[in-house]
């Protein structure tokens, strides 16, 4: 994955309803391993469902289950945006 990917953005910046694909996971070893183990591998589709009322954490849907992350952790996941109707369709 050496080619520059201009559309890569941190998952934390996506608005609720966005659908995206994970392209890279950064972060300190322990957190990074756990994010990968929870299924946030490269290539997986993630829907951003909503933010908590106070703006943090965010609720995600991936691999058919729901996961919430603080935005600090969501910022470690670089994604390519696929679309914006995740709240209606399924990932």
């Amino acid at each position, binding site marked *: 994955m050496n080619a520059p990917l201009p559309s890569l953005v941190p998952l934390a910046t996506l608005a609720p309803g966005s659908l995206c694909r994970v392209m890279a996971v950064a972060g300190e070893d322990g957190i990074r391993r756990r994010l990968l183990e929870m299924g946030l591998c490269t290539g997986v589709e993630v829907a951003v469902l909503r933010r908590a009322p106070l703006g943090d954490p965010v609720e995600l849907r991936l691999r*058919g289950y729901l996961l*919430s992350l603080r935005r600090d*952790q969501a910022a470690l996941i670089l994604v390519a945006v696929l679309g914006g109707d995740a709240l209606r369709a399924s990932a």
Partner: protein
Amino acid sequence: MPAAAAPVSLNTGTLTVALAGNPNSGKTTVFNGLTGLRQKVANYPGITVEKKTGRCPMPDGRVVDIVDLPGTYSLVPHSPDEVVAMQVLRGLRADTPLPDVIVAVVDASNLARNLYLVSQLIELDHPMVVALNMTDIAARRGVAVDAAALAARLGIAVVPLIGHRRRGFDALKAAIISATRPAAPAWRLPDPLAAEVAALAAVVADAAPETNATATALRLLAGEDGADLAASRGLDGVSAALAAARGRLAGRDVVQTDIEARYHWIDALVAATVAATPEAGRRSLTERVDAVLVHRVAGLVIFTAIMASLFVTIFWAAKPIMDALQDGITRLGALLIGGLAEGPLRSLLADGVIKGVGSVVVFVPQIALLFLFLSALEDSGYLARAAFLMDRLLSKIGLHGKSFIPLLSSFACAIPGILATRTIDSRRERLATILIAPFMSCSARLPVYALVIGTFFAAQGPLVQGGILLGCYALGIVAAAATAWIGKRFLGRGEVTPFILEMPSYKIPQAGEVARQVWTNTSKFLTKAGTTIFCLSILLWALAYFPRLSDERIVAIRQAQPAAVVPSDATPEQRQRAEADAQSASAHAIASAQLEHSVAGRVGHLMEPAIAPLGFDWKIGVGLVGAFAAREVFVSTLGIVYSVGEVEEDALPLHEALKADRRADGKPVWTPVVAISLLVWFVLAMQCMSTLAVVRRETGGWGWPLFQLVYMNALAYAGALLVYQIGTRLYP
């Protein structure tokens, strides 16, 4: 690696079966389904992780031991719970035998993520069975898992289960008896990692032929640590080969490559074994419920309503039951000691044992109701949402979303609250939660608040009284938040704790599971808090009982009492009543003098110089000593000091006695300023030995509980001092 599908001989000795699985996979319902009521909950030695074991009768007549491991997402642990699960599965714990069979509990409605742990369990190369749980929820979502096809690919039995309906357990037991080793891992690592793993595995296998060389080599390359790996690293040539392989792999991410290879395999496995109907394309019920329950407005309103009803339940609904219990214990006590003569034994039973039992048992309804609420919320999946909603607020002061429930529970009693912090993965946030939990005004403080507010602010009306009561609760919360914030600011620099929380599917709570939780937790409270409170009650009784007044003193006190005043025209009944009143007044005077003479009374006098700046005299000092067993004892101790006999917190005689009490200079002892000062003391002070004992257990030493004792009491002293010194200058 041994060939797959070799049946295991299970004919001799006790068989140990470990249940492993992700959190929320329904592992506990599977455990309950297998063991019924034949289970026991203890702690792993030296740590606070729960060890749940049970016995399960097998169809062939044998009985096997079942160990319910803590839920884990991975064998590379992140929390103390996960460490234990990993250690048991790898045979690294001396207190738990290496399991003969592993039952992997898998949530069929969340198959892919659950199969990740299965991929790691396969590498253990133990006889294994997959319990495919929650097939009903999966079916409702339009997901049908072909268990036979999954079994064929994994090389082990896959048993569909509906844990909470107790369906599929006969098949599961049969599968456990005939468990086989899984097929060799079928996922392929890409080169050059695959080649390096193979090369290193050859070195490991050379040095120690019996090890699971491939899995060990991969774990070494991924930089995992663990006692077993340290041993492997020490093998002949391994550490040199490892260093060389690491050098060749420089810049490549072994961890990510490994995890992604597993998920690649899992995706193919799911594609081949799961048939999804069009239903599966729709938003799940859970997602639709979440749209309401964690909605930015509706979510907060519902959250507030749920927490408020919890609060109302544990205070209002529990109150009549608690009163009835207290009443029953008092009557039972009277019945038991009725035949005994006046003396130390009778006093020990009445004021030590029965009061001690009473002060513990009286909390049981409240604790049980609290756990009823919490287990139902937990079982339904809502607790994860509560953590989600509250995390932002709590993270600002260095806490975790999961800190909310322990802190809320602490309004009933800090002990269940502190025990509930076990769900917080990060040690720092868990410790912070434990340290501030006792600032929440627990129900033992309520009788004290009620007495003080009821006595000194009776004239101000219910609005002011309610306001002061609310102020007590608010002061505790503010002190807790400030403490946590200071801790975060000055102690917890650097370290960032992640919040990675699964939002489990919503379920209707199962009455049986909830009842079981209530029972387990309530009995835990009774044994943990009960023993401490009980022992301290007896100790305090002794302090307040000994040494006894001499007979001469008693006679002197009796003679100093005014004789019954009986008008000459009194009827015989009036005369009798007046004499009885005089007698009881003299008995109270003796009791009061006795208390002053006792160790507790002397300690009260000794304390007086220290507590005088707070506006407290020696009598309050005695009450404070009593409050160390349990805060509500303050009220009954004051009752004795003021020689008004048995008191309830709303009893008028004590109110009157407090108001009438005068200092040597004729000024009243109790002024509204003293009352507020005392309230501030009770809000902030650490006066509960049972809490300290539980904190010691949970933090693994005396350091933190001692810190808590000193810190909270210093804060309480400063607060009460400030109130009294400023208050008396403003309102002399």
